[in-house]
């Protein structure tokens, strides 16, 4: 049980707990805040996986943009200051059952998979993942097309969300 493992277990437990609270908390704002916690935990996991860039990007994008956006949306769409009563719909039992079943199935598949216990090789010192990532994203025979498509998607989302959420004069 090395320090890294302890850190991982703590972070994972925190993330999962926060995730559970996200889907169960009555107060939506609290749920959003818990979402932030679990996203942060995932950022820490990225650090453990030597993906520093992703970790910081996770914080910037998810916490800095998405979580804030969610909180805004919640505040803009609340009738009363505090949500009361259960936040689950009538057939939450089914949902729970399905989720549990899925987890079981995944777990079982992992059991069957030989690659499950791959040894972790240390990254070579020369390998700068940030540089590698940048080049991979912009090399024409690698992921340039994907990159461009993603940017177009973002642009479309930008325009589309503005168009949808805009208060029209006529109505």
């Amino acid at each position, binding site marked *: 049980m090395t320090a890294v493992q302890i850190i991982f277990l703590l972070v994972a437990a925190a993330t999962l707990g926060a995730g559970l609270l996200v889907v169960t908390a009555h107060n939506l704002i609290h749920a959003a805040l818990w979402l932030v916690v679990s996203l942060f935990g995932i950022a820490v996991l990225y650090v453990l996986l030597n993906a*520093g*860039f992703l970790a910081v*990007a996770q*914080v910037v994008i998810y*916490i800095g*943009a998405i979580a*804030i956006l969610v*909180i*805004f949306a919640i505040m803009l769409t609340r009738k009363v200051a505090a949500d009361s009563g259960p936040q689950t719909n009538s057939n939450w039992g089914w949902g729970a059952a399905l989720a549990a079943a899925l987890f079981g199935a995944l777990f079982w598949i992992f059991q069957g998979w030989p690659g499950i216990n791959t040894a972790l090789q240390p990254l070579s010192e020369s390998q700068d993942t940030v540089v590698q990532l940048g080049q991979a994203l912009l090399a024409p025979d690698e992921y340039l097309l994907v990159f461009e498509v993603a940017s177009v998607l973002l642009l479309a989302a930008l325009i589309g969300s503005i168009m949808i959420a805009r208060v029209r004069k006529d109505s």
Partner: protein
Amino acid sequence: MDPINSIANWLEGLFTGWGLAPWLVNLILTGLGIVVLSTVALIVAIVCVWIERKVVARFQDRLGPNRLGPFGLVQPFADILKLLLKEDITPTGVDKIPYNISPIIALATVLILWGIIPLTPTVLGSDINVGVLFIVAMGAISTLGIIMAGWACNNKYALLGAFRMVAQMVSYEVPMVIALMIPVILASSMGIHQIVESQSVWYIFVVPLAALIFLISSQAELGRGPFDLAEAESEIVAGFHIEYSGMKFGMFYAGELLHAFTVGALFASLFLGGWSGPFVEQVPMLGVVYLFTKALFIYWVIMWIKYSLPRLRIDHMLSFNWKFLTPLALALLMVVALTHKLLSNTDPWVYVLSMLVANIAVGWIALSLARRRAIIERKKFEENRALARPAESAAAAPTS
């Protein structure tokens, strides 16, 4: 060999001599480093209080604190004492956890930035290779702290202030990130340390426009200067920290001041060559002096702007960002990237000069476009403007 590292090595030897596990030694040393660094930062914050009050006083043609100690130097400690002794009120109906966490976040996100600022060639907290992005990330988290504070207080003014602040920060993050990308391109690294080291010529002379954009947008990030709508006393009493009192408020306050100074330090590291200066190779500790001098200068510039300019209207603030600053930053990024790509392996003087010229050209074009727009706007405004005329009847009335 500078004292700090030597002390660290000595301690390391000492602990290992005691027979502690290396990872434990490492942990202890890191902890010590954190403690020392944050203490220094907080002391700086206290000094900032004094400086701020002095400078604002001078700007407003007053004397400022001058009773307590020489030049009122002891004044800030008295303030702190007051804040500590104040009763810590927790209004009813607040959401406890966010209410108590948000001041901590507000201060911590600023403190943590000191971990990546290289103080001297040899002393820096951690040299992460995505330092620039890290700055932005911390800004994002502080945004979160603010919105938590605003919401948790269960107070309309606080919520409004938080909304304004968050809208401002989120939107001004965009030009700031783009402006930050430009030193990254020049130094071809995201690590602050490499950026500082690669500044044979200070970047403010290479890409002045980027520096300007960064300064403006971080001014908005700070929520001071003309962008202090979040705590516009006349409209929403004190913004998101209206309900806070005592040391909780103190933390917000210290956080804001320290943040301003930190922005100064970041600006110095990114555009003013950080610790670099004469004799720094021989005496590394000089680097701290240089860094703090530059940071203080920028801090002074920030205060200068803050206390000289009137407050913006919110729609002006937002449209200034989205319609002027962001496009300008994008255009500048493209131009700089192109110039860099074309001239990167030419004579450095040619490179620097052409980069400078490109910057000035972009800025000039942007300004002239803005000026034309402004003229149009003013015309539109002055056309349908009700001018006060003398009432006909009054003019025609017979004087008897």
